């Protein structure tokens, strides 16, 4: 059962790659479609002169970026040959020498590093990343290569051979490592997360405010300082607007900020006892949200400035969290209590073609689309007591086959896909504290991003370039 689940999840992650819009090379997609991650060996890079001082952060960053992508099977360094290449010229083809005795097969004699040192056991890698750095003119220069080890010789094996430039310090070393990693990942159809932002809610100052950080947890900073309750951020597809709910003015209201100027842009709110769960349509022209109408919180849509508000649901049930399919803007998933307990539902953006996607068990919350519009991740108490949510993922065309990604490690909520379609960020409450974590969409590679206060409701947005 566990094996099958992992296989299915890997296939889901793999499909996410294939459908993410950037088609990988056919030979590489072969690995992925077969459910196998490409195996890569990454040498420890060394630096000449002053560059050597920054090789620890460089090597750690390069390894973490590649491993964290979830797209590659990283071969442990302990298995590598003792002699590692640093430049293509280090590869020396083995020569064939005559057998010592007649009747024996000719023997191969190693003259230096060769591709088969890496493709054969015990390494058995498909790819090799190598190179070195140097200090040149006050800059850090990286010479990075990626070889396909299935090729017979270095001339045909080279996929990447490139120079990267950074400042001669640890930050510069991390920068060139990330850029090299991004180029490697692009070979496998995986997108780099460099530059992406995570918006979230933190109470570390004593009140719930909207915060942002880089995708790896660095650069955490507050966007709002209302000393009230501000929550439920949503970001437009272009990353330029962030909307959220706030009680800063007494009655609940949606506010929208420009992420470029960090200033408010106008949004006209209904006066209501509840205004919540904003969601930009993929074209950024309209905003869906939920607000109390005739005694029930219902799903609405309005222009992005709040004008032309229109009610979509007309039911005596609570309906919240509308999420528009990024690839099919007429399709919406949302949470509805119309069947009793709150469940995941799907509808057209005009309210028609309703379908319940989860089976009615437990309580469902926080739906979030994969960037390719095929999967929805959500939190569900299925199999657990009320409040004990776990993260699930579902192919919306196969609603009867949800996969559970977290298993009982505290309260797991608020899943959100990274722009690469491979990673997710989510919140996990263990004990009394809730923190944000990332994982790959198969539930692996869990890493903690936050430590201060409680942190919830992450939204992973593309960066501004």
């Amino acid at each position: 059962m566990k094996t099958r689940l992992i296989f299915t999840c890997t296939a889901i992650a793999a499909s996410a790659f294939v459908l993410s819009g950037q088609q990988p090379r056919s030979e590489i997609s072969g690995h992925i479609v077969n459910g196998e991650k490409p195996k890569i060996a990454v040498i420890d890079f060394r630096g000449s002169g002053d560059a050597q001082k920054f090789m620890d952060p460089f090597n750690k960053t390069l390894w973490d970026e590649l491993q964290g992508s979830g797209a590659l099977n990283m071969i442990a360094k302990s298995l590598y040959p003792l002699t590692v290449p640093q430049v293509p010229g280090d590869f020396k083809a083995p020569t064939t020498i005559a057998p010592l005795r007649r009747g024996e097969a000719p023997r191969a004699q190693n003259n230096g590093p060769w591709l088969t040192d890496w493709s054969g056991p015990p390494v058995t890698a498909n790819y090799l990343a190598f190179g070195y750095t140097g200090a040149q003119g006050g800059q850090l220069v990286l010479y990075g290569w990626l070889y396909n080890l299935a090729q017979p010789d270095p001339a045909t094996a080279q996929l990447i051979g490139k120079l990267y430039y950074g400042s001669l310090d640890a930050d510069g070393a991390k920068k060139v490592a990330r850029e090299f990693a991004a180029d490697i990942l692009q070979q496998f159809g995986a997108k780099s997360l460099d530059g992406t932002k995570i918006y979230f809610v933190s109470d570390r100052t004593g009140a719930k405010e909207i915060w942002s950080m880089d995708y790896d947890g660095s650069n955490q900073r507050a966007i709002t300082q209302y000393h009230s309750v501000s929550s439920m951020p949503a970001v437009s597809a272009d990353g330029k607007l962030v909307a959220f709910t706030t009680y800063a003015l007494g009655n609940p209201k949606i506010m929208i900020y420009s992420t470029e100027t960090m200033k408010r842009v106008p949004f006209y709110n209904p006066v209501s006892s509840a205004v919540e769960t904003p969601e930009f349509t993929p074209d950024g022209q309209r905003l869906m949200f939920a607000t109390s109408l005739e005694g029930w919180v219902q799903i609405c849509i309005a222009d992005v400035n709040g004008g032309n508000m229109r009610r979509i649901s007309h039911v005596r049930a609570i309906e919240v969290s509308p999420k528009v399919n990024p690839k099919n803007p007429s399709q919406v998933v949302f949470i509805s209590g119309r069947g009793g307990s709150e469940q995941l539902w799907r509808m057209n953006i005009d309210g028609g073609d309703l379908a319940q996607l989860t089976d009615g068990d437990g309580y469902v919350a926080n739906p979030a689309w994969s960037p390719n519009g095929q999967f929805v991740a959500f939190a569900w108490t299925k199999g657990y007591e009320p409040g004990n949510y776990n993260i699930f993922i579902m192919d919306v065309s196969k609603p009867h086959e949800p996969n559970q990604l977290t298993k009982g490690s505290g309260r797991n909520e608020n899943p959100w896909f990274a722009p690469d379609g491979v990673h997710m960020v989510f919140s996990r409450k263990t004990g009394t504290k809730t923190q944000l974590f990332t994982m790959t969409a198969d539930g692996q590679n869990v890493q903690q991003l936050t430590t201060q206060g409680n942190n919830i409701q992450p939204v992973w947005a593309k960066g501004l370039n």
Partner: protein
Amino acid sequence: MRLNQRTLGAAVFTMALLVSAAGCGHKKPPVAPPPPPAPAPESAPTTPAAKPSAPRINTFTAEPRSIERGQSATLRWSVANATDISIDQNLGAVQANGNRQVFPSNTTSYTLTARSAGGSDTRSVTVEVSSPPAPPPPAPPPPTVSGSDMLNREAQDAYFDYDKSEVRDDGRTALTHDADLLKRIFAADPNFSVVIEGHCDERGSAEYNLGLGDRRATSAKEFLVQLGVPAARISTISYGKDRPVCTDANEECYQRNRRAHLAAAK
């Protein structure tokens, strides 16, 4: 008080009636007025006294000598042999023996002057006036308890079942009590209005809980309106699970948080 005045007035009127009635009953001829006094002789002194005597101020006092502003003092005097007696400070001519109440606002000297053909005499007295202590602070607002105080002290929360917004039996009791309270508050303060807050325990999702808190506030409002509390003076707001009264992970705390709470609207 007004009743007493009216009673008093009626009594006086009745007495006046009785008096005039008595007068009517025993009519007598009017008494003739006394004859005018004989005119003073035109010719001057009948007695060739050498000189008329000089006036003499026997006493001129102020009692008390010092007052606070707004209080009064009494001037008393006794003068002999004067034909023309006056006090300055606009008190004017006075009799030979008399008293006068004065209300000086500042320390004031009063000078009594007595004159006659034989001469004059003056005497002064000073009334010291001191400022009274600072006025007391204005009276506090009437000791009626404010509507929000009454609400804070007496209103009862209505509690709900998990994931439910129907008013339970204990909630009906609480809200019936609250309806009476609100009617009293509204009667005393025509500008008062109330907001019903809907709250949830921490187990549901933040998003759904805002909807559930809204339902609970709405259910409580509808119940109060059925009991005759004017709907126009009740608003609702949902705080979901963002304002818990406790944070323990047990049913007792969960129950305390699943509530509709009444507060004064701002």
